[in-house]
C-alpha cells in the first residue's frame, strides 16, 4: 500500500447524511473482477442522468450539471466533506476504491459506518471524524477564496489559512497509513501463535475443525 503523505488540496462538500455505499458505487459496477477504474462511477446515480453499466463509455452519458463534483470550485479536490454516518450499508470495498480512483485521499464526516471505516485503512484512504462545529468551519473554507486545506496525518492536523483543527486517530491506524503497512505480512509474522491456537482449539472444540 502506498504511504500517506502530507498534502494540500481544496475540499468538496456534499450536504447529505447517511451516504450509503450503494450510492457511492451502485451494484452494476460490482461485477468487475479488478480493483481499478471505479472512479468514473463514483456516485453514479447522482452524477449521470442516464443509466450506465460496467463497460460503457461513460464519457458519452449525459451528466447531471447539478452534481456537486461538477461544481468548478471543487475541481481537483482530494478531500471530501460529507454528512453523518458516511459509508453505511453494504460492505463493498468498491466504495473505497471508487473514492480513491476518483482522486480522494481523505473523507471528513462526523461519523463513519464500521465496515467502511475499516476498509479505508486497507487502501490508504484517511477517514477523519470531527465535531459538527469543526466541519462547519471547514465548509466555510470550501466556499471561500482561500480554500486550500493541508492534511498532516503525522501531526494529526488539518491546517487552513486561518485556523487549524487537531483530529484523533488511533495510533495503529495512523501507522498503517503513514508506513503503508501490509496487514497480512504483519499477521503472518505471528504464524506460530496462530498454529498453537489451532492445535489447542482442535483438542477443546474439535468439531470446529471438521469439514
Amino acid at each position, binding site marked *: 500500500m502506498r504511504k500517506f503523505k502530507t498534502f494540500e488540496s481544496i475540499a468538496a462538500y456534499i450536504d447529505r447524511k447517511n451516504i450509503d455505499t*450503494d450510492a457511492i458505487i451502485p*451494484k452494476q459496477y*460490482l461485477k468487475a473482477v479488478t480493483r481499478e477504474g471505479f472512479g468514473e462511477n463514483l456516485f453514479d446515480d447522482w452524477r449521470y442522468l442516464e443509466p450506465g453499466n460496467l463497460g460503457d463509455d461513460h464519457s458519452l452519458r449525459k451528466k447531471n450539471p447539478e452534481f456537486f463534483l461538477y461544481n468548478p470550485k471543487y475541481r481537483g479536490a482530494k478531500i471530501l466533506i460529507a454528512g453523518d454516518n458516511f459509508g453505511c450499508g453494504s460492505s463493498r*470495498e468498491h466504495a473505497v476504491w471508487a473514492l480513491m480512483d476518483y482522486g480522494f485521499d481523505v473523507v471528513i464526516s462526523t*461519523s463513519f459506518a464500521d465496515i467502511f471505516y475499516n476498509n479505508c485503512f*486497507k487502501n490508504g484512504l484517511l477517514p477523519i471524524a470531527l465535531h459538527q462545529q469543526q466541519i462547519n468551519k471547514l465548509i466555510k473554507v470550501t466556499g471561500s477564496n482561500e480554500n486550500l486545506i493541508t492534511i498532516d496525518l503525522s501531526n494529526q492536523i488539518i491546517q487552513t489559512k486561518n485556523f487549524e483543527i487537531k483530529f484523533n486517530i488511533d495510533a495503529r491506524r495512523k501507522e498503517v497509513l503513514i508506513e503503508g503497512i501490509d496487514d497480512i505480512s504483519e*499477521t503472518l509474522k505471528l504464524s506460530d501463535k*496462530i498454529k498453537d*491456537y489451532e492445535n489447542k482449539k482442535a483438542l477443546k472444540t474439535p468439531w470446529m*475443525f471438521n469439514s
Partner: protein
Amino acid sequence: MKTLYDKLWDEHHIHSFDNGYSLIYIDRHLIHEVTSPQAFEGLKQAGRNIWSKKSIMAVPDHNVPTKMRENGIKDPISKIQVDALDKNCKNNNLLKFDLEDIRQGIVHVVGPEQGILLPGMTVVCGDSHTSTHGALAALAFGIGTSEVEHVLATQCLLQKKSQNMNINVVGEMPNYFYSKDLALLIISKIGTAGGTGFAIEYTGNAIRNLSMEARMTLCNMTIEAGATTGLIAVDEKTISYVNGKPYAPKEEEFKKASEYWRDLKSDEGAHFDKTIEIDVSKSSPMITWGTSPEMAVAVDDKLPDLDDERFISKRDDLVNAFSYMGLKEKQNVNSIELDKIFIGSCTNSRIEDLRVVADIVKNKKVAKNIKSAIIVPGSGLVKEKAEKEGLDKIFKKSGFEWRSPGCSMCLGMNDDKLSEYERCASTSNRNFEGRQGRLSRTHLVSPATAAAAAIHGHFVDVREII
C-alpha cells in the same frame, strides 16, 4: 462476568498488540462471487497460500439468474464473475455449491442450513449481512475484500473489540408482527448509526419465543442499525436447529458440542455499555416509507409530519426522501399503491417466510395493478421443501412467479430489478436510493405485509384482511 460477545471474543483471541488491537481467529469463511475475486487475485500476486481450505464455503448468489437457469448466465459480465469464483474454488479445492447443486442459494441461507457454521464460531463473509449468523450465537460479521484476502492468507483478522449493547425485547409479539417488523421498529428507534461501534445482543422473552429462522431475520437486519454483529444466546431451540444438519457434528461429538454451546450466553450481571428495552406487546406491523431503513412507520400510522418537532434535525433528509419516493407527508400508509412485489433475500426467504405468504395468498389473486410479484426462495433446499408442501402451487395459482434461489431483486445485480420510479413492497433489507434499480422505490416489509399488499395492490394492515 462476561457477555456472550465477550465470551466469543475471548475464545478466539490469539494475541494482543500494545496498540489496542487483537488478533482474532476465524473459524468459518463464507465466500460469494462479488467480493472475492480481487482477494484471490491479491493472494496470487503476493504468492501466498490459503491458510485453511476447510474453513471455507463458497456459493454464487448475487449475480445468478432466478429464471430459466438451465440456459446459464446470459449477462456476459456476470458470467465472468461467477466463472471466476468457480475457477478460484477449483484451483484451490474449496467447498462450493454450484448453480446446478440443490444446496446452492443465498450464502446466508445456505451456511446455517448446511450446519457449516455453528454456535460459538467466528464467521466472516465479504457481505454485511453476515450478521445473520449471530442468531446461532456465532460471532459473525461482514468484512471488505482486503479482509477477505487477510482471512484467506492468515485465518485471522486484526480487530479492536466492540462495545456491548443489549436490546432487551419484552412482551408478547402480537399476531402478524414478525421479527422483520421488530427489526424495523428497533432501527426506527435507534437509527441506522445507533449500533455503530457496538456488538448487539438481543435478549428477553420475545426473543426466546422466536423461531431460529425468525432470529436470523432479526440478526440479519442488525447491520442496518449500524452494528456489524447481532447476537442471540444459545437455548434448546438453537441446539435442536443444528442437530442433524449435514455438516454439524454427530452423535457423541454433537453431545459434547452441545454442552459447550449451552454456555454461550451472557453471565447474569454482565456489563453492557448500553441497554435498550423495548416492549412489543402493542406493536403493529412496520413499513419503511423512505430511503433509509430507519424511515419506518407502523402500518396503522401516517407518514411523518414535517412540522413534527421530533424531525427538526432531520427535516432535509425527510424532504429529500419524500421527493425521491414520490410520497407526501402525513399520507396514509394504505394509500401507497405498488407496482411490484419481491419476496426473498437473506432477510426473508426461508421456509417459514414462504409458509406465511402462502397462508395469506391462498385462494386469492395478485391485484391487477401489480406488474410482477416474484417469490425467490433462499436456497434450492428451501425451494424443494416448499414444493413438497405444495406452496409453489398456491403461489402460482395466485399469480406469483416462483423462481430459483439467489439474492435477486434485493440488490438487482441480476435481471431482477425495478424500472425507474417503480414502487415495490420488498421483504429485503435496504431501501436506499437506487438499491433495487436506478430511481427505484423500495418499501421494506415483512413477508406477511408484502403478501397482503400483493393481493390488494396497495399497502394494507395485514391484521384487517385475515
